[in-house]
């Protein structure tokens, strides 16, 4: 077993899991990164493009999206860590907070955009 894998807090525990599960964990990680990038793209676009929207609600929507764009990479990394450790130790997989956070955030953003359109 290699001793130089990062982070050691993950790889010093348990045993090597089925490679397919490790790879699936990686893909999940990359999916969260992609979602985060998509959120910040929309958030910046909303604020930067010359759209006919009420400025206050529009800014609020953009801020929410950018916050999501920060939360997703954080979830990506810590989720990857926790799942990899759980796979190595044969434990059940941990809960993913952003799976609740993301729909709530998107719903709230949708409401704000509707308000921005309705009150322009």
């Amino acid at each position, binding site marked *: *077993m*290699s001793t130089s*894998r*990062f*982070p050691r807090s*993950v*790889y010093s525990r348990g045993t*090597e899991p089925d*490679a*397919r*599960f*490790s*790879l*699936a964990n*990686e*893909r999940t*990680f*990359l*999916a969260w*990164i*992609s979602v*985060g*990038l998509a959120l*910040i*793209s929309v*958030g*910046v676009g909303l*604020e*930067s493009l010359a759209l006919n929207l009420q400025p206050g609600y529009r*800014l609020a929507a*953009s*801020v929410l999206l*950018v916050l999501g*764009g*920060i939360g*997703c*990479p*954080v979830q*990506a*990394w810590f989720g*990857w*860590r926790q799942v*990899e450790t759980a796979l190595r130790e044969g434990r059940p997989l941990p809960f993913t907070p952003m799976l609740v956070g993301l729909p709530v955030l998107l719903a709230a953003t949708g409401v704000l955009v509707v308000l921005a359109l309705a009150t322009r």
Partner: protein
Amino acid sequence: MSSGSGPAGGLQPERTSLAWYRTCAALLVLGLAAPRLTWSSLDGWALLPAGVVVAGSCVLLTASRRRYLRVRRSLRQDSAPPLPDGRLPMLASGLALVLAALAAWVVLGPH
């Protein structure tokens, strides 16, 4: 997630490799587009975080290709891994956070 009679490890490594390429491409494109939006408020400094993201995603692109080949090889030999570790995920997270910080600056900062 069946492996059937296909290549060693099934199609998982290829899927993962493609996911890495997709993410690297997205990071690269956003890194290249960032200076357009941040130049008005940051002048030349806009090139610094954008450059970090562009350089980082190039590193990520080449490293994830090597990672894919290593995974394929270790699965085929069925010998003791080690499979790749958390270094590239950490780099990818960091680059995404840099872009998120730039986005926060564009949305909330001076225009």
